[in-house]
Every structure is written in C-alpha cells, then in structure tokens.
C-alpha cells in the first residue's frame, strides 16, 4: 500500500502539472480538494482519466468517487479494492 501511495503522489503531480510540489510535500491523509492540496473540479476530472488510463478503473458513481478522492490514502484503498475485485 505504501508503494502505491508514493506512486499515486507522483502520478498526481505529473497529471496535474504541479510544478513546485514534490511527493514528500503531499500528506497522504490530507484532503485533496478545497483544503490540503487545493485541487478543483477540473483536477478531479483529470484524476478520473488518470485512474482509467493507469489502473483500468472506471468511476461511475459520484458518491463512490467523492469518498475515493478524499485523500491519497483513500484513493489508494479504492484502487486496491477495485483491482482485487477485478482479479
């Protein structure tokens, strides 16, 4: 799980072009949207695309997405659970 969290941090930085942010600056438990990293709705769409491209996971339920995208940790859990379901 730790490796996935670190990988997600790098992928978020790359996908959203967060130029001056390094993975160690991202608190995996901090909220991604609003406070914390301060991402917005457009960033959310980009992360949905990233999930599909890198992990083959399609997000179709808004409530599920809201919980999954709360933090890097919850995103990692979501990916792990969905990949296990798929296997």
């Amino acid at each position, binding site marked *: 799980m730790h490796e996935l969290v670190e990988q997600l941090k790098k992928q978020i930085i790359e996908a*959203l072009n967060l*130029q*001056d942010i390094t993975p160690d600056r991202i608190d995996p438990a901090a909220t991604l949207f609003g406070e914390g990293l301060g991402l917005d709705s457009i*960033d959310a769409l980009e992360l949905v695309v990233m999930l*599909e491209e890198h992990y083959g996971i399609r997000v179709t339920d808004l409530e599920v997405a809201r919980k999954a995208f709360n933090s890097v940790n919850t995103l990692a859990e979501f990916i792990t659970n969905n990949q296990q379901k798929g296997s």
Partner: protein
Amino acid sequence: MIVTACGYIDETSFGSNRSLSTWRNSDSGRPDQLRWRMVCDSVFDRFGRLDLLSRFAVVAVEMLRLRPPPPNVTFPDMGISVGTQFGSFEVDVGFMQGKKGPGGGSPILFPYTLPSTVIGEIAIRHRITGPSVCVQAGTDSALAALWQSVRLVESGEVAACIYVGCDGIFATSHLCLPDKSHTQGNASCFAYAFLIENENNARKHSRTPLAQISIDNNPNSRAEKSSAQDSREGLDRLYKYLAASDASSKVLKLTAPATLRTASALVIRRIESS
C-alpha cells in the same frame, strides 16, 4: 487617465518599468519550460496547470506589482482587457489531438480552449470582479484591446483596468507562424501588461503615474502610419517608452488599428517624476 505600471515577459526575459531580467535557472530557453520560480518570488501552486498563454499573461500582470488583496476583498471597480492574435490555438490543437487518443481530450486543457480563460486566471489571482473584454481579431487584436481598456476607464465604467497583450505559440508554431520575422526561434510567446486607471484611484492606492494616456479623436492628430505588421511592435514601443528605455520621445502616439474603424490615436505623455 494615467498608466501606473507596466510589465513584460517573452521567451527569455521579463520585467517591469523598473528593471528587465532574464529567466532564472533556465537551461533550455524553451517557453514551455517556464516555471513560476524563474520569474517570481511569491507562491503560485496553480501555475503549472495554466496553459502557455495564461502563464505568460499572469507573469506580465505580476510585474505590475499589485498589492495582494486582503482576505475576502474583491475589486468590482477594476476591469481586465486582453488582446491576443492566436488566442487558444495551441491548446485547441493539443485538445483535439488528445481527443483522438484512447484517453480522450484532457479535462485540464479544456477550459483553456477559450482564450478568455486568461481573463479568468488573472481575475482569480487578483480577485477582480469588474467588466472584462477579450479581443482575438487577427494582428490588430492587442492594440484593439488596448483601446478598449482606455475606453473602459474613460467612460467611468471602471476606476482601473489591467491590460494584457499576449500570445502563447510554441509547439504549433509551424502551423500558424509562417512569417518568423517577429519570433525568436520557433515560438511567439510574450505578454505586455499595463495598468491604466484614473488619477483618483491611483492616489487611493498610492501608485505613482508613469504617463498620461488619452484617446485623441481628431483625425489630423493621427500618428504617422506605423510600419508595424502587427500589434506587438506598438506594444513594444509603449513598454519601452514607459520603462524610459526610449527617452528620445516626449509624446508617444499609436494609431488606432484598422479593426476599430476609427481615425483616433492613442496619445501617451510621460510624467517626469519630481
């Protein structure tokens, strides 16, 4: 009306009316590699997500050195006027190319397929909620938008107007820059910014006037026809005049672009500091 600040950035340098510098820590000199830290000391985490056009425009506005607004304060009496020849062309191409791929068009790129998003980025950063105008009408765009910014202040609709003339073409230069006489290398990335306001507003914000600016509608007072092929030369003359690097002229006149269908001239008269 007066001009109280000016800013500039191109593919290698940036500055205000006080100084001109080259990008810091820049190895490649590629405009798409511009980082906020290369030109500014303040924080701007969003910068990397902006498209090329918005990045250059936002940096030029930063050179105006507007004081950061206090929390929860907005400026409804400030307007924004942007002129751009190529607008969102580079993003349009990138978005359509992405659309053909397996992932579809990038959501982050999509808002920037509107050139007026530049205004949005400036407005968000400086909490400006006044009227705005974006002109994309060929080579006259930047000068036409400059006329609009002066008119906005002259009419009293706003107390101040941020003007930006800009372009952000790099990866698609081969598609839209057949004549490279105005570019460096294979890019046309630049932004000029001017702060135009009425004298009361300038006094209220303790800003020192650089020059008086007005529209002269007398056709006999028109400047000689400029040899400039596009607005960039006119903006460059204005910037150098305000930054006092062109000390030869006491008065600068810019002819109205053909787009505006007016015989007026923009008259700028430097105010010598006491």
